[in-house]
């Protein structure tokens, strides 16, 4: 299988480099390297956007979770509907704000809108988390998967550095546009392979859903039921929730954390750099909420049940299943490894390239080498990309545990940007003080409900009484709850001082340039109420009804009316109604429909105007000058005077 696998990778490498080269040769201006000249086609947004969104819960992780926890973990796939709702809420307004102000990234938009260096630093930290630890975890998992499926013929280190070099190569050639092309193609291939391999597995092997006792489950875990609404546990690491960790509250809060991917640098950059007016709505409704959630929900269990059937669990279970497929046909085994690796590669490539792009705009071009434009900007991005890939590969190869401890912070902290984005996109009364106060409080809470803070505190001082995700509530939800309270109180107290003319003009410009059609107050109330009702029954406490709603009263647990578990039927119904809900919001309410492309508004110049100013600290400029002083090359033939 190893030979076939390497040959298949070779084809994909050749394809990626060809597409990246073609894209680079036809790029009109050097600065388009960073954002594709905001001309990414709609289909690129549709496929690449879904691929990046699925990085919130990669297929690799989803299969392992479902194989260990059964249908209660399968419920997490419905969380992609929540991702679509958050994306619909913010992406169109971010797209419009970028065009109205001329700013390029979400970090620049938030930093300029609130005029806060603290927010810029927070966003750079968030960028770092996505760019290095999260990407390193994905690359590390990829190395382990390749190592185990090839039975050690390809060492994990070699796989990590080889894949990192390949991803770097096409990224550094093609820039953001080239990366989007390749990611889109890889997602399409992965989708086709997922459908084929799932159906083949379902038809060839024994059982389509994880219900029977043959599945190797963790002791005491309910495979076809949700374990409850909430479990009063101290959190992971302190005690083990009875019946499994995925209570309804855990699922709802995890879905909220998954929504952080819609606020990640990669996904927001893709949205901002999209040219097509039709791409956003289609991505949100039919791809993320539709195909993304549906494929994991319906097809994931077919593969997971076979992965969990073997005598080993975890990645070894994946490798064992790959062996079973390879014993039928070697190409099937290779296709399965490619399927697993694609989701991880998409995440690494997207986070690294968007990280390099945002780093150039928000850090290098702003603080280190102000006024960077054109060819130099492209060169700076390429250098940043090289550093990023070296950092990712080193972290993946030499510090996978440290990366795994830091990586969970990324999504949880990204969710804490919701108040800041609500202020930027919808609610002008939200103030800088409110946003920063909320971020400080929520950041502390998130860090101390995730391994990074808990481990550090317990090593340095004393044991904490809680572990990761106390009460089975995800750290993102803990943080956001207190974030919203603090933000609201501080914003109300400071609103009269802070709202500037530029901010007010931006919100007025939204009404003309990126309008929405939420209807009368009654309609608005109905729409948001329906959204909350859906969240309650599909992801929240109401989902507990799915355990037994389709079981005859009086019959014993497990005797079902239909051949599939009651919970799976509930999940499918929740998913379908979720698609309808997102369609209603994205299309009918025009949260994601773009009618016209707005131009740059001169009256908003103060928001964008601070970008080219020389505001780098003097010591940075002097230090760089000593290191890299050289005279600009003279034009050929010009004489020195």
């Amino acid at each position, binding site marked *: 299988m190893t030979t076939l696998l390497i040959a298949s990778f070779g084809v994909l490498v050749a394809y990626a480099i060809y597409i990246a080269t073609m894209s680079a040769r*036809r790029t009109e201006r050097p600065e388009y390297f960073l954002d594709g000249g905001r*001309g990414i086609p709609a289909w690129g947004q549709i496929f690449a956007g879904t691929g990046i969104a699925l990085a919130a819960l990669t297929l690799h992780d989803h299969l392992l979770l479902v194989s260990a926890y059964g249908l209660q973990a399968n419920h997490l796939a419905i969380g992609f509907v929540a991702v679509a709702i958050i994306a619909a809420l913010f992406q169109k307004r971010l797209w419009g704000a970028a065009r109205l102000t001329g700013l390029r990234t979400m970090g620049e938009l938030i930093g300029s809108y609130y005029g806060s260096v603290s927010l810029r630093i927070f966003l750079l930290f968030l960028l770092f988390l996505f760019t290095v630890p999260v990407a390193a975890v994905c690359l590390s998992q990829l190395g382990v998967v390749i190592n185990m499926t090839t039975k050690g013929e390809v060492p994990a280190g070699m796989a990590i550095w080889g894949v990192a070099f390949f991803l770097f190569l096409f990224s550094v050639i093609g820039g953001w*546009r080239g990366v989007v092309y390749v990611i889109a193609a890889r997602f399409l*291939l992965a989708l*086709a392979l997922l459908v084929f391999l799932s159906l083949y597995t379902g038809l060839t092997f024994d059982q389509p859903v994880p219900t029977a006792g043959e599945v190797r489950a963790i002791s005491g875990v309910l495979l076809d039921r949700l374990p409850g609404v909430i479990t009063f546990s101290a959190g992971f690491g302190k005690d083990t929730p009875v019946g499994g960790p995925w209570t309804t509250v855990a699922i709802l809060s995890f879905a909220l954390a998954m929504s952080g991917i819609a606020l990640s640098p990669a996904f927001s950059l893709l949205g901002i750099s999209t040219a097509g007016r039709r791409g956003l709505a289609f991505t949100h409704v039919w791809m993320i909420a539709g195909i993304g959630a549906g494929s994991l929900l319906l097809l994931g269990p077919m593969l997971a049940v076979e992965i969990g059937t073997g005598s080993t669990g975890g990645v070894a279970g994946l490798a064992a299943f790959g062996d079973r497929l390879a014993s039928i*046909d070697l*190409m099937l085994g290779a296709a399965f490894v490619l399927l697993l690796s694609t989701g991880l590669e998409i995440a690494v490539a997207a986070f690294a390239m968007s990280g390099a792009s945002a780093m150039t705009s928000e850090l290098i071009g702003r603080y280190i080498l102000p006024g960077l434009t054109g060819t130099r900007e492209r060169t700076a991005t390429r250098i940043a990309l090289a550093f990023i890939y070296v950092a990712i590969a080193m972290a993946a190869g030499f510090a996978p545990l440290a990366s795994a401890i830091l990586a969970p912070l990324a999504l949880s902290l990204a969710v804490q940007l919701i108040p800041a984005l609500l202020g930027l996109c919808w609610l002008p009364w939200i103030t800088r003080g409110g946003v920063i106060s909320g971020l400080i409080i929520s950041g502390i809470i998130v860090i101390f409900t995730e391994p990074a803070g808990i481990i550090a505190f317990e090593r340095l001082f004393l044991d904490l009484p809680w572990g990761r995700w106390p009460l089975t509530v995800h750290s993102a939800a803990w943080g956001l709850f207190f974030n919203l309270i603090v933000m609201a109180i501080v914003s109300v107290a400071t609103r009269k001082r802070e709202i500037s003319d530029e901010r007010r003009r931006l919100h007025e410009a939204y009404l003309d340039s990126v309008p929405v059609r939420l209807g009368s107050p009654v309609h608005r109330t109905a729409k948001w109420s329906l959204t909350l009702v859906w969240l309650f029954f599909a992801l929240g406490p109401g989902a507990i009804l799915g355990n037994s709603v389709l079981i005859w009263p009086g019959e014993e647990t497990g005797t079902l009316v239909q051949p599939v578990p009651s919970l799976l039927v509930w999940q499918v119904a929740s998913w379908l109604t979720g698609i309808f809900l997102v369609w209603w919001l994205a299309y009918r309410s025009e949260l994601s429909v773009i009618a016209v492309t707005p131009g740059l508004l001169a009256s908003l110049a103060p928001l964008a105007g601070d970008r080219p100013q020389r505001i780098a600290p003097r010591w940075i400029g002097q230090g760089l000058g000593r290191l890299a002083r050289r005279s600009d090359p003279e034009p050929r033939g010009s004489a020195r005077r």
Partner: protein
Amino acid sequence: MEPSSGHRATDRHALVMAIWLTGGFLAVVLVHLALSTGQSVALYAAGGTVLAAFVGHIVTNAVYRTAFTRRELTLALVLYAMALVAFALATLLEPGFKEAYFLPLGLVLVGVGAAVLFYMITHYGMRDVFESFNVVRDANVRERSDLVQKRWRSRQ
């Protein structure tokens, strides 16, 4: 900052490549599966995958308001001819191949060819279909001649 439509050709080409990468890879997996396990249904599925990719290509052409390029037609012809030659050689030289795979593989090849021809005839018309195979039509372009006996060159 907003680019014009200069990238449309690249966008279209990248989309076409993405479609054929997916369809082609899946078809190879299915053919490999069929040849190693003898499951002829996988061969039909491979043919279906190629047809699905072809439909995707047509949809792309419709969205971008373009037609198949000369290079695409040439590549398709070469690949199809290679598949036919490989099929013929395997039938003649590989023991047991004819009994196991001749019918399904033959049907797939005929089906793919027929679908492509059907599309081209319905879309372009019979005459233009044959014109489109004339890939060396402009290989020797010269100025129009003033000589009476060279009037046939007046097409250019």
